[in-house]
């Protein structure tokens, strides 16, 4: 993928690329540290329909959502052969009982039969996380299991 990087003297730097649908999408990184998500309009790729300021947390979450979707799709593809097995993603919201706790404390596999196969964090993947991996707000857990097991796991992560 060809990402264009352009200096914005006095402001910061713009990184963007053209999507297959003909719209430009990217990020403006300000010198002061904020970042903005930019999306061009459909009729004029030079202009921005939206520029959405994102906090560091929000940017990391968005990165995880997009990256997680991709990973989950690959996993679903892999599990298609096995009926009854589903892949789902859970995000750790603020106020989750397991925020800043090791994942083993939730005993997800014992209680629901669901396996956490990966954690998406700040745009990076932690594959096959062990029970001592500490969960943070904004983490996206990629889980594999049965439909009922996944419902139970969601409830565990939300309410303890």
């Amino acid at each position, binding site marked *: 993928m060809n990402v264009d990087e352009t200096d914005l*003297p006095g402001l910061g730097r*713009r990184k963007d690329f053209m999507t297959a649908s003909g719209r430009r999408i990217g990020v403006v990184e300000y010198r002061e540290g904020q970042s903005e998500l930019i999306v061009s309009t459909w009729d004029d790729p030079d202009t921005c329909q939206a520029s959405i300021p994102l906090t560091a947390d929000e940017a990391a979450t968005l990165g995880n959502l997009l990256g997680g979707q991709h990973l989950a799709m690959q996993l679903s593809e892999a599990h298609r052969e096995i009926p009854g097995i589903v892949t789902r993603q859970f995000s750790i919201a603020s106020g989750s009982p397991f925020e800043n706790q090791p994942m083993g404390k939730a005993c997800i596999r014992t209680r629901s039969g669901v396996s956490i196969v990966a954690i998406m964090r700040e745009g990076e993947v932690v594959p096959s996380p062990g029970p001592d991996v500490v969960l943070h707000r904004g983490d996206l857990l990629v889980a594999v299991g049965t439909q009922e097991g996944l419902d139970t796991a969601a409830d565990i992560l939300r309410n303890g």
Partner: protein
Amino acid sequence: MDPLALTLIELGAVVFCLGLLARLAERIGMSPIPLYLVGGLFFGAGGFMEFKGIQEFAHISGEIGVILLLLMLGLEYTATELVTGLRRSWQAGVLDFILNFLPGAGLAIFLGWGLVGAMVMGGVTYISSSGIAAKVITDLGRVGNRETPTILSILVFEDLAMALYLPILTAILAGVSFLGGLQTVGISLAVVTVVLMVALRHGHRVSKAVHSENSEVFLLNLLGAALLVAGLASALQVSAAVGAFMLGIAISGVTAHNATRILEPLRDLFAAIFFVAFGLNTDPSSIPPVIGWALALALLTAVTKMLTGYWAAKRVGIAVPGRFRAGATLIARGEFSIVIAGLAVASGAVLPELAALATAYVLIMAILGPLAAKYIEPLVRVWRRPAKPQPAAVA
């Protein structure tokens, strides 16, 4: 009344009024500069009421305001950005200079103000307001637009051009001979080159020299350094403002960022007083006779800036709406036009009509610029619609 008491009351009244004007400007979403100028006209010689007690203070504060304006302009850019900007956009920069310097200079000659007047008015019409342009770009959410780097590099070029133009202007206003003028130009070229080299290689050392964790120490260091450098530059006839600008460029990285934050309130205060001081020295009754010329000049230089932006954006492959946006964003003139006119007026080498024309011109352009930048987009869309039918909505 005790003269001190009178001065305090007058100063308080002026600053308080500036606060009200700034709030009004914010409410209606315009640059406060034209309102400050009007405020100055109101309280100055021949205005609604004349404030004599603050003239001296306003004069010195105005000078400090100019130094802070240029220092902060230098802080905004790193030496690397200036050099790459120069390399990328010098063609557009040269076109910008030719198209926008000549109208002002031509009018000055036509009005019989001589070469000195032409030099001053050319500068007034040449330089866009980077303050207004940057605010317009941010406010209209155009930071991510493709034409924005083009606009910014033209502004960068103009600011570097100021570093050469101001010393030349200072020398001409001081009435030095041709040879003396050449010497000044030589000195300023050498200074600019040396500062850029030092800033590129050793910027962190300059930053370290003024930096401090303690904000009080930092502020005093910065301000002291800026005034010293400005004073020395002035003694060398290179123009105080350029000295401050070069110091700003030499300071880089985190130090520059912190310096911007710490100096911003000071800059706002002193720059506001500078605009008022300029207005104070202009007799409002001298404006009506030149208003026709100011309007004509405004229209002409709006078109020339539009052409500049259009051409520069076209060169880098931007579509028609973006070209118009680039041109319209450059139209605003503001703080630096007044800095140039202020230098000329302070030297006494130009006629009072020039100050009146510059005031009227900036009043028009500072208001017209942001409006043009905002409404060019819908205008272009309406104008282009017949050529491009709306595609059917996706169900």
